[in-house]
């Protein structure tokens, strides 16, 4: 297929770049994934099923995917509001806040985990007042959720930001001149135009939260069945030399993530055909 493209194209280097792309993607992504699947083949289907349906595995998966979904939802809403403020308003410190959004990207996840744990521990700045209210954050699922929100927020902000910047202010003026109030303008004109970007941001934040390890394990408490995330369970199985168990859980996570990304992709495709980029 690459040769067919090369023959028709007047661009130089098609063969070379296509070859490099395919090789690189294979080495970096496809071969490790294939290895993962091969490793699980050491298990019989019965064993595989048993690992998958064990209470601890199911709970870990439930915690990982459930909390990631919740965190991505929160990030979607809050991220959209933050983007709106950063793009639409001029306020002192705007550039600073804009830079702050990137911190979860740049910060080593372990550092983030330690910081959050300190903050929300029973004697921490936020943990102490919350404890008085009877809310325990650190070493509970709430802590995991907060860590996932923390690491997910830049994904929504950075995906939606350029699209909102590009959105023509005349669109809003047109809506106003047609008698639309702010509510109508936001919910009928602006948000629908942002849907593809919002979906992408959501998917990225979700995927990141599912895969997150470093920042979560410090604050999670890691009680089996209560606050143990699936990536941690994989690490535990590895440290017990139960490699097949570990890869079985990994495969399930991979398939589930893949399915979710696929659904979001479909949704995006659907939205994009409705809102072609010019």
């Amino acid at each position, binding site marked *: 297929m690459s040769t067919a493209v090369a023959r028709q194209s007047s661009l130089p280097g098609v063969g070379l770049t296509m070859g490099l792309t395919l090789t690189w993607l294979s080495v970096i992504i496809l071969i490790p994934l294939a290895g993962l699947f091969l490793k699980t083949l050491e298990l019989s289907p019965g064993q595989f099923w048993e690992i998958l349906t064990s209470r601890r595995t199911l709970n870990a998966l439930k915690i990982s995917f459930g909390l990631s979904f919740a965190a991505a939802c929160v990030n979607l809403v809050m991220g959209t509001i933050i983007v709106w403020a950063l793009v639409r308003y001029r306020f002192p410190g705007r550039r600073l806040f804009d830079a702050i959004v990137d911190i979860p990207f740049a910060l080593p996840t372990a550092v983030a985990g330690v910081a959050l744990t300190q903050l929300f521990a029973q004697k921490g700045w936020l943990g102490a007042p919350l404890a008085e209210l009877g809310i325990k954050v650190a070493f509970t699922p709430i802590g995991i959720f907060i860590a996932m929100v923390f690491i997910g927020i830049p994904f929504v902000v950075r995906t939606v930001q350029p699209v909102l910047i590009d959105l023509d202010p005349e669109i809003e003026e*047109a809506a106003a*001149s*047609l*008698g*639309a109030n702010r509510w109508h303008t936001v919910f009928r004109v602006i948000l*629908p135009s942002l849907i593809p970007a919002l979906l992408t941001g959501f998917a990225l934040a979700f995927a990141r939260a599912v895969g997150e390890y470093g920042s979560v394990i410090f604050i999670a408490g890691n009680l089996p069945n209560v606050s143990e995330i699936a990536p941690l369970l994989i690490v535990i199985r590895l440290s017990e030399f139960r490699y097949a168990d570990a890869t079985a859980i990994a495969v399930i996570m991979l398939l589930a993530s893949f399915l979710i990304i696929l659904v979001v992709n479909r949704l995006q495709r659907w939205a994009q055909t409705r809102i*072609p980029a*010019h």
Partner: protein
Amino acid sequence: MTIEVKNIVKKFGAFTALDNVDLKVGKGELLALLGPSGSGKTTLLRIIAGLDWPDAGEVRIDGEDALGHGASERHVGFVFQHYALFRHMTVFENVAFGLRVQPRAIRKDEATIRARVKELLDLVQLDWLANRYPSQLSGGQRQRIALARALAIEPRILLLDEPFGALDAKVRKELRQWLRSLHSEIHVTSIFVTHDQEEALEVANRVVVMDKGRIEQIGTPGDVYDNPATAFVHGFIGESIVLPVEVTGGSVRLGGRPLNIAAGGAASGASKLFVRRHDMQIGPAGTGSLEGAVRHVRSFGPIQRAEIALSGGEGKTVIEIDAPRDRELQAGEIIGLQPRRYRIFAAQD
């Protein structure tokens, strides 16, 4: 509906976009705001629409103060240069938008909305595009849809900001005629902004010529072309020959040589003589108050356009004239020239 603009001042930082502008637009008029970019015409239109606010002055629509209301309460149709269609909505939904966002108390039922949209799409002759998205339309079609959308709310007045500015020349010409006939059909008071004099003269009942935030002249297309009030209007509308002259007590001199024309009440001092290309009468050498050598002639249609180097003075002045073809000019020929109609304005600098 009438529009009345009084003493409008608008500044953007140190730049004065509108400097004490007064304007009255009568019921059913189709008015053009004409001027170069930066003349304030779009700012004035946006202030009338409620998309911008003046620093001082008054805007009245049908006698009622408009500045107390935002754009969404003014009931003013606005058409943007780049259409500003909602790209996630079909053509049908775009046109229906203004009807769907009406307050519940006066909102029409779905059947009425559908009928109204259909009617508007028929009016702009694009009913067959109802289910397309804006990105699937040509520029001319998009602008017609934008117009239908603005008309859907039965606006009191219609404002168009460079409506044909983004279209190619041929489509622009078609749409101009179409807009004029549409206006005579629906008769809504309309103002459109343009920097294209041909467009303004061809479409509008009245033309407002603006420059540097001020109104230079208001008049019918014939008026502003034949009787320009200022040097700017003469230079901006139509092609003009401009010669630097000296007026002294009723006599006009070009480079020291007296011209055989009346100063027509022009004040003494350095001035500019404006003559339309086709208002320069040609004759044999020795006749007329100017003389020059024909350097180059191009003939097309009913006219010949000649480049003439004026003799006398610095001898370097070259003008272009349009002459009828009843007397063919030859390159190298010396001819006499006499301005048939002309205007003299004081030189501003």
